[in-house]
C-alpha cells in the first residue's frame, strides 16, 4: 500500500522532471507526459480507495525517508494513508486530470505550452505532498511549494502587468499566513519535540493544560498553536482578512483558476484543519473564532460578488464564500461535513470555472458579463453543464451542493449557533442571486457573438465538462449516507459524534433529508431568490437602487483593495525609508563599516610609527619586554 501511495505522490513529480527535460521539443509529448502522470496517480488513488474500503485497512503511517534522526529532533518524509487523505487525493487528482485534459485545447495557442504543464504537474505534486504527509515538517514544505506554484501560475502570462501584480499580491498575502503557520509549527516543535501527526495528537491532551505567555498575557498553549496554524489556513483558504489575493489571482489562465483557486489549493487550509481535528476539537475558543470567521466570509464576500461584472471575479468571490461555509463547518466541529462540502465544491466549482473558460474562449477573451449574452443556442453543452453546476452551487435539492451545503447550514442551526445560522441563511440568498446573474446574463438576452455560425468548442474542452457534471450533481446523493453515519472517515476526523447525532436525530437518511428540505426556510429563501433573480436579471422588470455608501463599499470590496494597493505601500514606504536612512546608512554604513575602517586607519597610522625598520629598535623592544617579564616572574616568588 505504501508503494502504491508513493507512486501516487511521485508520478506528478516525475512528470514535472520529464517535462522540464523535454522543454519545447514537442507539444504532443508534453501533453502525453503531463496527462499520463496525473492519470496514473488518479487511478492509483482510486485503486487505493477501493482497497482501503473493501479490505478494511487501518490508517497507516510510514516514514519513507529519514532526514535527521537525533535525540533533539526527528525529521522525515512520510506518508499518512487513511480515508481522509485518500479521498482528498482522489479529488485532487481527478480534478487535476480533467483540468489538464481541458488545458490541452485551452492552451493550444500558447507559446510556452510546456511550461504550463510543468507548473500544473508540479502543483499537483505539492498538493499531494500536503495531503499525504504524516508530519508538520512535510506539510510546511508542501504548503510552500503550493504557494510557489500558485505564484508561478497566476503570473503565467509574464508580459501581462496585472498578472504580475496579482501574483505578487497572492504571494505576499500567503507569506503573512505562512508566518502564522511557521510560528505554529515552531510552537508544536518546542512543545511536543516531534513533528509527527500521530504523536502530536496523542500528546495534545497533556499540552492542553500548558500556558504560554505573550506580552504578559497568558494563553492556553494548544489554543495558541491552533490559532497560529489557522492563520496559515486563513491565507491559503482565503478567509476574511487575508482573502483579497484570490479575486486578483483570476489573472491567471482559466484552467488554473479552476484547478488551484477553486478546487484544490484553496482547500489546503480546510484540509489542514480537518487533518488536525484532534487538536482543534480540544481548542473550543479557537473553534468559535473559526466559526465566526467562516460565517463572516461566507456572508459578506458573497455580497461583493453581486456587484462584480467580471465573470471570473464573480466565481472567485463565490469560491471565497463557499470556503466560508467550510470554515464555518470546521468551527462548529463538523469536520466531515466540511470535507464533504470541500469535495462537492471542488467538482462543481471546477466545472463552473471550466464553463467560464469555454465562454471566455468563445467570446474572444471578453470577461465582462455585461458584454456577453445569448450563448445558449451556440453552446448547448456548456449551457447544460453550467446549469447543473449552478444548481449545485445554490444548493438546489438533490444536487451534490444541496447535500453538503444544506447539511452544514442545518447542522449549524441544529446546534444552536444562532447568528452564524442566520448569516448563512442570508448568504443562500446572495449565492442564488449572483449565480442567476451570471446565468441569465451570459446565456440569455441579446446575442453578442458576431459570427452567427459559431459552434461549440473543441472536444477536449467539452469532455471534462460532461465528466465533471456527474460528480457535481450525483456525488452528494451517492456518499451522503455513509459519510454522515461516520463510516467514511471513521477515526480520521475528531468529533464524529456531533455529525452522527445530527444525522440520527435530524436527517435520518438522504431521501428524508431531501423531502424534508422542501419544508425548510432554506428552500423558501432559495426559491424567493430565484424568482427575484429571474425578474431582476432576466426580465429586468424592476430596478432596485441600493444606498450609495453600500454600493461603493461593495465595489471597493470593503476597502481591502485599497488597503493592499494604497495604504500598505504608503506605510511600507515610510517604514523602509526609515530603515534605509537610519538603519542602513546611518548605523550600518557610516556607523559600523566606515567608522571601523576610520578607527583602524587612525590606529594603524599611530602604530606604524613604531615600525622604524631599525634592528636596534626592535631588539630594544624585545629586551625591555624580557626585563619586564623577568620582573613579573620575580614578583611571583
Amino acid at each position, binding site marked *: 500500500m505504501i508503494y502504491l501511495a508513493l507512486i501516487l505522490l511521485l508520478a506528478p513529480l516525475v512528470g514535472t522532471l520529464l517535462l522540464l527535460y523535454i522543454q519545447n521539443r514537442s507539444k504532443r509529448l508534453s501533453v502525453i507526459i503531463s496527462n499520463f502522470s496525473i492519470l496514473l496517480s488518479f487511478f492509483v488513488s482510486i485503486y487505493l480507495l477501493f482497497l482501503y474500503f473493501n479490505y478494511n485497512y487501518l490508517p497507516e503511517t510510514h516514514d519513507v525517508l529519514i532526514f535527521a534522526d537525533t535525540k533533539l529532533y526527528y525529521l522525515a518524509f512520510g506518508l499518512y494513508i487513511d480515508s481522509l487523505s485518500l479521498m482528498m487525493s482522489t479529488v485532487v487528482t481527478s480534478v487535476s486530470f480533467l483540468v489538464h485534459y481541458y488545458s490541452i485545447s485551452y492552451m493550444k495557442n500558447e507559446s510556452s505550452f510546456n511550461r504550463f504543464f510543468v507548473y500544473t504537474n508540479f502543483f499537483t505534486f505539492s498538493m499531494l505532498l500536503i495531503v499525504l504527509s504524516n508530519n508538520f515538517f512535510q506539510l510546511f514544505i508542501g504548503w510552500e511549494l503550493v504557494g510557489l506554484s500558485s505564484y508561478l501560475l497566476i503570473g503565467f502570462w509574464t508580459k501581462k502587468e496585472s498578472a504580475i501584480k496579482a501574483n505578487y499580491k497572492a504571494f505576499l498575502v500567503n507569506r503573512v499566513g505562512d508566518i502564522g503557520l511557521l510560528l505554529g509549527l515552531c510552537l508544536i516543535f518546542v512543545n511536543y519535540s516531534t513533528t509527527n501527526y500521530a504523536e502530536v495528537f496523542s500528546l495534545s491532551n497533556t499540552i492542553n493544560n500548558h500556558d504560554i505567555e505573550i506580552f504578559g498575557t497568558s494563553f492556553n498553549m494548544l489554543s495558541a498553536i491552533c490559532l497560529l496554524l489557522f492563520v496559515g489556513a486563513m491565507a491559503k483558504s482565503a478567509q476574511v482578512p487575508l482573502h483579497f489575493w484570490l479575486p486578483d489571482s483570476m489573472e491567471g489562465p482559466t484552467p488554473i483558476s479552476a484547478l488551484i483557486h477553486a478546487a484544490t489549493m484553496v482547500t489546503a487550509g480546510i484540509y489542514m484543519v480537518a487533518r488536525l481535528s484532534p487538536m482543534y476539537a480540544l481548542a473550543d475558543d479557537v473553534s468559535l473564532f473559526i466559526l465566526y470567521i467562516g460565517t463572516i466570509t461566507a456572508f459578506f464576500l458573497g455580497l461583493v460578488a453581486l456587484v462584480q461584472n467580471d465573470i471570473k471575479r464573480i466565481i472567485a468571490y463565490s469560491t471565497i464564500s463557499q470556503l466560508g461555509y467550510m470554515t464555518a463547518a470546521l468551527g462548529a466541529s463538523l469536520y466531515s461535513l466540511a470535507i464533504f462540502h470541500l469535495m462537492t465544491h471542488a467538482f462543481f466549482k471546477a466545472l463552473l470555472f471550466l464553463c467560464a473558460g469555454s465562454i471566455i474562449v468563445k467570446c474572444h477573451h471578453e470577461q465582462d458579463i455585461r458584454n456577453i449574452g445569448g450563448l445558449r443556442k451556440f453552446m448547448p453543452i456548456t449551457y447544460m453543464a453550467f446549469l447543473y453546476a449552478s444548481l449545485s452551487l445554490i444548493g438546489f435539492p438533490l444536487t451534490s451542493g444541496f447535500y453538503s451545503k444544506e447539511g452544514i447550514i442545518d447542522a449549524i442551526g441544529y446546534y444552536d449557533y444562532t447568528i452564524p445560522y442566520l448569516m448563512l441563511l442570508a448568504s443562500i440568498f446572495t449565492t442564488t442571486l449572483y449565480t442567476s446573474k451570471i446565468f441569465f446574463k451570459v446565456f440569455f438576452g441579446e446575442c453578442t457573438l458576431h459570427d452567427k455560425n459559431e459552434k461549440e468548442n473543441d472536444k477536449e474542452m467539452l469532455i471534462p465538462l460532461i465528466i465533471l457534471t456527474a460528480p457535481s450533481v450525483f456525488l452528494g446523493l451517492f456518499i451522503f449516507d455513509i459519510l454522515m453515519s461516520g463510516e467514511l472517515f471513521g477515526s480520521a476526523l475528531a468529533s464524529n459524534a456531533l455529525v452522527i447525532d445530527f444525522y440520527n436525530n435530524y436527517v435520518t437518511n438522504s431521501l428524508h433529508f431531501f423531502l424534508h428540505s422542501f419544508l425548510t426556510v432554506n428552500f423558501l429563501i432559495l426559491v424567493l431568490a430565484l424568482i427575484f433573480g429571474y425578474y431582476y436579471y432576466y426580465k429586468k422588470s424592476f430596478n432596485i437602487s441600493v444606498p450609495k455608501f453600500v454600493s461603493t463599499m461593495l465595489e471597493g470590496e470593503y476597502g481591502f483593495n485599497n488597503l493592499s494597493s494604497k495604504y500598505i505601500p504608503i506605510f511600507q514606504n515610510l517604514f523602509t525609508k526609515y530603515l534605509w536612512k537610519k538603519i542602513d546608512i546611518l548605523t550600518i554604513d557610516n556607523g559600523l563599516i566606515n567608522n571601523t575602517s576610520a578607527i583602524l586607519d587612525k590606529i594603524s597610522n599611530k602604530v606604524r610609527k613604531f615600525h622604524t625598520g631599525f634592528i636596534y629598535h626592535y631588539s*630594544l623592544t624585545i*629586551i625591555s619586554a624580557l*626585563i619586564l617579564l*623577568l*620582573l613579573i616572574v*620575580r614578583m611571583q616568588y
Partner: protein
Amino acid sequence: MNIELITFFIFSFLLIFTCLKVVTSSNPVLSAVNLVFSFFLSAVLWLLLGAEFLSIILILVYVGAVMVLFLFVVMMLDINIAKKSAAYINYLPLGIGIFIAFNAIIIFFFINTFENIDYNAVKNIEIISKSNTENLGYLLFTKYLVEFEIAGLILLLGIISAIVLTYKKNPKNKYQNPTKQISVTKKDRLKVITGLKE
C-alpha cells in the same frame, strides 16, 4: 684562596675586558681579534668546568674556522673605517643602562635561586670512563645519534645556502637553462617559412 679560584678570577676579568673591546672598538678587525681572544679565555674557563672536549672544539672550530671566516669577510669588504670612529659615544649611555638593568635583574633577583638545589638529584647518568671526550662521544653516538645526524644536515644546509647566496653568475660563461629546455614546444623548434622568393 686556592689556585682554582685565582685562575677563574684572572681569566674571567680578562674575558669581560675582551668582550667589552669586541663591542666598543671601532675597527672591525680589532673586534674580531678580541673575539678570538675571548674564545681562548672562555676555553680555559670551560677547562676549569671539566669540559675538555668542548674547550678544544671551541678553539679549533670557532677560532680556526668561524673567526677566520669573519676576518676574511672584514678584509673582503671595502669599508671606510676612519669616519666611523667614536660613533658609539652617542649611544653609550643607552648601552650602559641596558647593561646595568639586565645585570641587576638577573644577578640580584635570580642568583639565590640556585643555592638550595640538591645537586645529587640528577646524578644518575651513565659514565663509562673518566675521560670527558669518551663520555661525550658515547652519548653522541648512542642516545643522541639522530640529533647528531641532524646537526650534520644543518651544516650541509649552511654550506649550500652560503654558496647559493654569494654565487655570482659570470655573464661570459655559457651554460644551459634547463627550464627553458623543458618547456619548448613544437612551434619553437620548427618554423615553416613560405612565400619566400628565390
